[in-house]
């Protein structure tokens, strides 16, 4: 490469860099448009699915009628109202609630409004939910839960990710060893979801040994001192994070180990071994480097995956995370919250996919942006 560069004239260089710019620019534009269209389709589909194609309107209307009627009929004033007054009272209340939830407008109109608001990140107000602090602003509902989710999933997934890669790398060079076989044997344990282990961990460490809390973010009442508060949060983090890690650990190691094994048996690695290079150098230069794009991709997807939370694990541990918020929003058909969660994930995913293309080019000299190869 270096000798080729020496023979290039400045004009050729200019032309080459100019064509690179055009290629990259064109690629960027096409890629952005494609991703945007994908996001639009994805979000609109989410809106349609969340509304069951408009059937949710029927469900919500029936729910409103039931709820308002029951509330009204159990009031003291109710018993002394005549039939007409009762009916008017209930009808007025129902009409107001229908209007409040926007059900007086056609579903199609609402769906496009949701879409536009979502795309412009105007997250708006929740229909039924409030944030823990009592706000109906979707942004606050999500932001309030984000730190807890990032803490739990971030710590668990980062430990899982880096821990499993490190172990897998080591195992890939000890193929057939006792530890390798042990990991393979234990890998089916990942078939059980994190909450499954969570329940066992709670039973053992909270109910039986009484050394860990049952759940929640922090002790009740929360310590006033900031350091004590932090320590309390960490104590509450141990069991749910462990559940997440245990659930994924062996299978993840097994996956990476198998992946690394392919590269470990490459000729150039054998050559390096024959040359007598130390293990660390072999791992870093000959195995890790060519696998870097895959590792980066996984890592990036892991990071944006944090956004979705862990619905059941959070529920089992009463962890105030985004997963539970989303779960509740789905149960309440709170479309703005569902759409907000989706659009943010969609944007994060699109941005990540977009940036990964450039990252590949940076870490792998074989990759050229927009070259079509």
């Amino acid at each position: 490469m270096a000798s080729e560069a020496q023979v290039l004239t400045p004009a050729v260089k200019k032309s080459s860099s100019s064509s690179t710019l055009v290629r990259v620019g064109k690629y960027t534009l096409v890629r952005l448009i494609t991703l945007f269209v994908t996001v639009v389709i994805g979000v609109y589909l989410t809106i349609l699915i969340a509304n069951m194609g408009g059937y949710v309107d029927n469900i919500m209307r029936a729910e409103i009628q039931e709820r308002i009627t029951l509330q009204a009929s159990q009031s003291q004033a109710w018993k002394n109202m005549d039939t007409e007054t009762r009916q008017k009272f209930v009808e007025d209340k129902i009409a107001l609630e229908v209007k409040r939830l926007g059900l007086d407008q056609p579903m199609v109109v609402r769906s496009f409004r949701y879409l536009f608001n979502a795309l412009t990140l105007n997250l708006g107000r929740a229909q039924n939910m409030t944030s823990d602090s009592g706000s109906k602003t979707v942004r606050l509902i999500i932001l309030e839960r984000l730190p807890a989710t990032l803490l739990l999933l971030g710590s668990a997934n980062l430990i899982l990710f880096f821990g499993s890669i490190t172990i897998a790398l080591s195992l890939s060079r000890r193929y057939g060893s006792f530890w390798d076989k042990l990991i393979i044997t234990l890998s089916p344990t990942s078939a059980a979801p994190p909450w499954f282990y969570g329940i066992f961990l709670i039973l053992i460490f909270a109910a039986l040994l009484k050394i860990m809390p049952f759940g929640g973010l922090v002790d009740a009442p929360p310590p006033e001192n900031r350091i004590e508060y932090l320590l309390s949060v960490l104590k509450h983090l141990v069991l749910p994070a462990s559940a997440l890690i245990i659930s994924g650990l062996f299978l993840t190691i097994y996956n990476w180990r198998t992946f690394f094994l392919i590269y470990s048996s490459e000729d150039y690695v054998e050559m390096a071994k024959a040359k007598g290079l130390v293990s660390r150098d072999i791992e870093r230069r000959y195995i890790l480097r060519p696998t870097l794009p895959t590792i980066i991709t996984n890592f990036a997807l892991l990071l944006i995956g944090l956004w979705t939370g862990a619905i059941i694990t959070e529920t089992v541990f009463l962890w105030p995370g985004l997963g539970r918020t989303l779960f509740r929003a789905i149960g309440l058909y709170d479309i703005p919250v569902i759409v907000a969660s989706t659009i943010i994930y969609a944007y994060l995913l699109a941005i990540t996919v977009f940036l990964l293309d450039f990252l590949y080019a940076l870490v792998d000299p074989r990759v050229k942006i927009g070259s079509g190869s």
Partner: protein
Amino acid sequence: MLRNRMMLVFSLLVLASMVLGACGTQTVQTVVVKETQVVVEKETQVVEVKETVESVVKETVMVPADVAPEMPERRAGFGGWLDEIVFSVVSASAAVTQIQAGAIDIYASGLSSNKLPEIQEAGFNYSKQNGLFYELTFNPVGPTFPATGKLNPFSSAKVREAINWLVDRGYINQEVYAGGALEKFLPITTQFPDYAELADVARKLEAKYAYNVEKADAAITAEMEAMGATKGADGKWMYEGEPVTLIFLIRTDSDGTRVPIGDYVSGQLESIGFTVDRQYKTSSEASPLWVGGNPSDGLWHIYTGAWSATVIDRDQGDNFQFYFSPSSAYGFSGLWQAYTPTEEFNKLCDDLAYNRFANLEERRVAFARALELSLEDSVRVWLIDGKNFAPYNTNVEVTYDLAAGIDGAQLWAYTLRFIDREGGLMKWGQPDLFVDPWNPVAGSNWAFDASAQRSTQSGGVMADPFTGLFHPLRIEKADVVVQEGLPVGATLDWVTLSFEPEIVVPDDAWVDWDAAAGKFITASEKFTQTQTAKVKSVTYYPADLYETIKWHDGSNISAADFVMGMIMTFETAKPESAMYDESRVSNLDSFMSVFKGIKIVSTEPLVIEYYTDAYQLDAEWNVTTWWPQYGYGEGAWHQIAIGNLADAAGELAYSADKADVKAIEWMSFIGGPSLEILGKYLDQAASESYIPFPDTLGQFITAEEAAARYSNLKTWYEDHGHYWIGTGPYYVDKAYLVEKTLVLKNNGYFTDAADKWATFGTPKIAEVEIDGAAQVTIGSEATFDVFVSFEGAPYAQADIKQVKYLLYNAQGEIVQVGEATFVADGQYSVTLPADVTSTLEAGSNKLEVAVVPLVVSVPTFFTFEFITAP
């Protein structure tokens, strides 16, 4: 090789353990309870302003603006029993385990019956309260559905009635509810006052409709054949060449018990020849069909319904209209419009709903007949009165409400304690907390929030947890005057009931509110003719009210707090108001439909007259105290004033509806973005010594008092970080909204003795025994002794409403109903005359005694079997 085999064995073991673990049943019950919203909270009052202003000001203990009052320490023997209560969120599935582990002392929300064995095995105490009550809802359209032309057997009242015989309620109770529920035949709650009052009628009907498959089959066969159906060779009902298929909507959500109920009933229907299409659906899937859809479409035949009653309802007469009549609140639904009760039943539904009776005896007769007709109609077949159970540790004592349990009882905060000591920290668990913003005017109405709020409030009266009657809490006494000819009675001696031919509303009574002028409108200003009312209640507060009762921030309660409550009843629903809220209009309209006037007779002591056309059967329920208890919490005038400023400025809204319309935050006094805005208006109010509605409240508040109140609230906020104050035995020390934790501390200002409500320890459910001859000669007199006791001591006659007996013959038919004769406290006798025993055939007969106490709405039944021989 050996290692490989070991690995294989080990991996198989791991897999097997996971499979076995996953097969274990685990019930995770999510209880989402919304507290019933009381639509009309308060009504107006009228004040003789000129005479009262000075005395009110004098009565108010002034607190210097620059010296914030300090909450006194808890005094032994006064106020709440505990030093501190810490609320946290605990899932229902982990409740018992957490108590066992010492993580919590009490789980205050009811667990369903399937948790009862676990609670009992753990040896914990527990409350027993109403759960859901379950029924089968039938689609009555027919005989064929217009949309499909298919036969609907349940179009026949006789087929519906026969379902009562087809289902074994005892089996459902044992199998589905572990025996922890009650069998239910009637549209009234089995442990509520109306049932107790009509216990003999109820038992008679329960005996008539007892499980009897043969009887059900015979009745259904006769009707099916009359409708043109035939039974095929395979024993299946056919109509026009097709099997008669019943579409059964079985709910899968809620507490999950409707699935086994649905399956059981399906099995019973299949056993007598029906083909059943079991459609398992969630609430949201089923609702558009059974309540929202058109029943003529024939998309369903039966639905597993369930309802709830979270307060002791002393008048369930309106249940008939609600469940059986097109005039029901559910009249909007096509299903209810398809109901065709008989003319007699329909009239009774309406009469009982509106209490169109001259006296209580007339009502009783009508009620008994309506019960009978409801079973003949049976558009609903009632199955089970569910019970829930809230566990607490053995060292904990608390009074629970028979309907609302612990967390729903007004009394819980007054009675919760450790048995072995005064004081201490109680750890309280419940399924959720801080679900919606807290504000007294239109804040959260979730049961999970209301449970905590109750401890921070007192009130004019205290709800009796066992009878649903009221006792004086802050009021001293009350007079109730009722228009002659209305069926109203009194039970307790703190209320004086009288009747008058006409009740005139005074000309100076307040009858409306002028939001533009900020003044009340008197009767003489609004009407040209003298107004009358059906009920007048006069509430008397004690003379030392203003000295003894303080808000948590140290401010003494004053007449202005009461008047602010009256104003707010009207203000937000008036279009002229800066706080106008469209969603409040219907509430005010319904209130105004019965409201006749209010008058503050004096402020020293505080005496309030209230005039209304609304009346209840119990005089105790006709007392309106006007305690500053808004629909969703207590409110001090200065606290409401800053909320009003924020609402009027359009920065916050009391109600969720208005908040949505204006796209602003829903006001919260407990936390969140509201606090900063409220703080701003508190500063503004304090700087101006702001007196809200000056033309009215200005007569009750001085600028100095206003300044002192705002200063107190400011100090309160600085100490506790919120604006939620009340006069209850506990105050909110700290609220952690994201962490879902609440710290309540003892209110040192609270003056009542801690054991004031100690008499409400355990519900005095009577224990009954019968002693008598095991063999009776036909045609001779027979006497039986009845012993009624509670915890081993004779039950005082003063606490007994009635002891009735029912005599069943060998065929299980009731041959006589009568009243037992009082002998001594706890002892009664039943004498069966010779002419009665002569009607009995030789065989095994039953004498059942129903004891109905006055102090608890749960009757006790006891059955004694004896043999008759010639």
